């Protein structure tokens, strides 16, 4: 089953930009080799850290969005843990939240299309099409 993950990691700030690029592309190749589909890589740039991490006050943030199963993510995380320039990382699963957000957006769009008078922001259950309301009432 393909799940969507967001991997955000911090690279130490005293690395040159080309080195960071090289590191990121190496990780991307590793991820693809492990069976993950790389959807997006975003360099969020140098940011001030909220607390000291391994003695550093700043860090280069990188965000990778992957679509894969659990095993490939395990492998990606292992590489991140082992790689020396990466000082912190977090993996977040986003497919469930994305599904919910999409569902809500779809419901809102359908409500707007139906009629302008019924624009009451109620729970999604109540926004089911009209034929169902006599049955529930």
């Amino acid at each position: 089953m393909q799940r969507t993950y967001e991997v955000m990691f911090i690279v130490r700030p005293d690395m040159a930009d080309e080195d960071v690029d090289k590191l990121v592309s190496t990780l991307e190749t590793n991820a693809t080799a492990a069976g993950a589909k790389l959807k997006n890589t975003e360099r969020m740039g140098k940011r001030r850290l909220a607390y000291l991490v391994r003695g550093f006050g700043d860090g280069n943030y990188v965000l990778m969005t992957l679509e894969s199963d659990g095993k490939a993510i395990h492998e990606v995380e292992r590489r991140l843990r082992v790689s020396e320039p990466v000082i912190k990382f977090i993996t977040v699963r986003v497919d469930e939240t994305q599904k919910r957000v999409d569902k809500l957006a779809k419901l809102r769009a359908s409500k707007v299309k139906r009629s302008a008078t019924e624009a009451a922001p109620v729970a999604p259950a109540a926004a089911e099409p009209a034929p169902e309301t006599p049955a529930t009432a």
Partner: protein
Amino acid sequence: MADEVKQQPAATSGNETAGTSAPATTSAPASTSSPATGGYTPRPYGQRREGGPRPGGPRPGGGPGREGGGPGGRKFFRRKKVCKFCVEKIDAINYKDVRLLSQFVAEKGKIVPRRLTGVCTPHQRRVSAAIKQARNIALLPFAARG
């Protein structure tokens, strides 16, 4: 219990003295002797009309806020707070948007309770989870010097 309340109808005019004789254990006898309040007599607060659903469980914000500057027995929050996410229809609370999350974080870095921010429970849970994720990736501090 019901008898002793009914035996003093002349002496008691309302609910305050009933409160002293039958301390806080039962509400049913009070209902028979005080038709004005329409059923339930909350003793410490004096007379109070039930407005809609009883704010029984989570009292902060909704119920007492609606009463406003009424009887000053307990601490009441002046205005009725609404959940920012429900109003603005923000669906996804991400750990990445630090600006949004820092509105729910106190100066020392602590997560602000929902009775102060007015956030509804499901959204407060999501905000809390997002703040914890942001803390782990050093976007927010665990503890800041306030």
